[in-house]
């Protein structure tokens, strides 16, 4: 099977800090991969490199066999990679359903100057995504003061409305209470599996990683130091020492 995303010899430094130091990896279709590692190890930088937010000094990012290295975020998004953020990035002046309708409209071409955003075609598709994410009941509510869990789900719903083939999630459970995190992840993973979306998520919570990831990649000082099934990786003393600090 051909990888959906291949990264080769990826490098980027911020001053003396190497955030990507020769990263090589392949991600295959329908995988659900967790990226773990200590703070500052380059996990979010990797997502930024893959989505064009920052450009590598060396190396390449190949998506579905074509290079997306040095391309702008909007070009990469149009190619089929969507992203959800650690701090949810919402259009706070718009209601929840309008946020998702904008995403649906963006996927179909934003340059329609006279078709209203609230057009039935956009509304229907936005409703489908909101129902999948269990957000249907609050669809017309404002996004400005939503609880963090709902903000996370909305951020992911916006990304999913783009119908991506690869979704990058940055700490989907950060800021979410312990009681809510599994319910949140059940919803997200359920949708991603149903929609057959390949996903890569940065995570600090090892319970979440163990329960939901097919494969775990361990980051340290801008390098992938280990990779494999969660049962194997999370038992490695070397990994535990580097990631959690348990010796």
């Amino acid at each position: 099977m051909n990888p959906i995303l291949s990264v080769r010899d990826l490098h980027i430094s911020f001053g003396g800090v190497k955030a990507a130091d020769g990263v090589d990896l392949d991600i295959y279709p329908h995988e659900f991969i967790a990226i773990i590692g200590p703070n500052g190890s380059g996990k979010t930088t990797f997502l930024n490199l893959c989505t064009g937010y920052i450009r590598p000094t060396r190396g390449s990012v190949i998506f579905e066999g074509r290079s997306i290295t040095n391309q702008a975020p909007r070009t990469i998004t149009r190619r089929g990679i969507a992203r959800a953020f650690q701090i949810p990035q919402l259009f706070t002046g718009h209601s929840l359903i309008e946020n998702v309708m904008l995403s649906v409209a963006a996927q179909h071409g934003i340059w329609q100057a006279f078709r209203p955003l609230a057009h039935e075609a956009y509304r229907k598709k936005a409703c489908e995504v909101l129902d999948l994410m269990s957000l249907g009941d609050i669809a017309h509510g404002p996004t400005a003061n939503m609880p963090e869990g709902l903000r996370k789900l909305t951020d992911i719903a916006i990304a999913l409305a783009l119908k991506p083939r690869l979704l990058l999630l940055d700490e989907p459970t950060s800021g979410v209470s312990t009681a809510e995190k599994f319910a949140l992840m059940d919803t997200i993973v359920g949708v991603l599996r149903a929609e057959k979306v390949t996903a890569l998520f940065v995570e600090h919570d090892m319970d979440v990683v163990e329960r939901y990831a097919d494969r775990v990649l361990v980051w340290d000082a801008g390098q992938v130091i280990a990779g494999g099934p969660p049962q194997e990786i999370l038992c490695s003393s070397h990994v535990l020492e580097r990631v959690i600090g348990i010796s």
Partner: protein
Amino acid sequence: MAYSGPSVFGAFDMVVWQLLALAVAAMALPVAVPWLGFVITVAIGKGLAALGVAMLLRGGLISIGHALYVAVGAYATAFLMLSVGMNELFLLLVCTTAITMASGLVIGAFMARYRAIFFAMLNLAISMVFFTLLSKLYNLTGGSDGMRVATPTVLGVTLDRTKFDLVLQFSAVALMVVVALLIDRYLKSPLGEALTAIHANEVRLEYLGVSARGVILAVYTISAALAGLGGAITAVAIGHVVPELSYWTASGQLVLIAVLGGISGVPGAFIGAFFFELVRTFAADFVPDAWNAIVGVALLIVIFFLPQGLYGLLQRVKMRKARL
């Protein structure tokens, strides 16, 4: 699951009614006070330009140089009549709008790279450069004396000035309604909503695959065209164009009108323009040395008590009625 969101057509109808009410007022006032016809025509010209400024404000962009395009529209009208011999009112309005739109597209391609104070100051700088050129290129533009604009024909018919003013007033009112409805439609489209989204979160918009610069260039070009149309109406209404049309105080007036009227709906710019021109006209009559102070106090009242502008007051009354 079926959702019953706010009716788009209901909201559309409301704007239609509001614009029709404005149009009726704009045509009825001069019946009672005939000389107000000229004031209304000029107010619509300013309202069109202020609508362009209000659109930019929705995207968080403040242009304190948009009078540039009013001047481009006004001078384009004068040049088309003088140099090309174009003498038909509606053709002049169309050509002038196209010329201003093209200039907005060219300058906008540069402006779309900038945000916040840089956007505001660059617009101001370009408008002041244009003002200086208009003032100094005496042989071409007539310098500070400006250029005369003759009375155009209407559908090939030469009218005396009184009849022409009446036709211009009715045409301006009709244009106000049609243009405002088109802009309302645009602002409610994904492209228009993307403009508001830029104000809230430009990064997220880029991550939807949308070019924020493209969205800004589109609105900048449209706003320039609106200001140009306003400038053309002003030019034929007054019959004279001067460099002061591009001066920074004229740009400040457009921002003032947009804020005064409110940016949450297209009628706001015209409500602000009517209010501004009527207050200015009557204040200049009764207290000639203090009309600026009256407009200033009115603006302070709006900023403190009506942050959504005069149009926001209408919406507030409507919401209160809906609650009862």
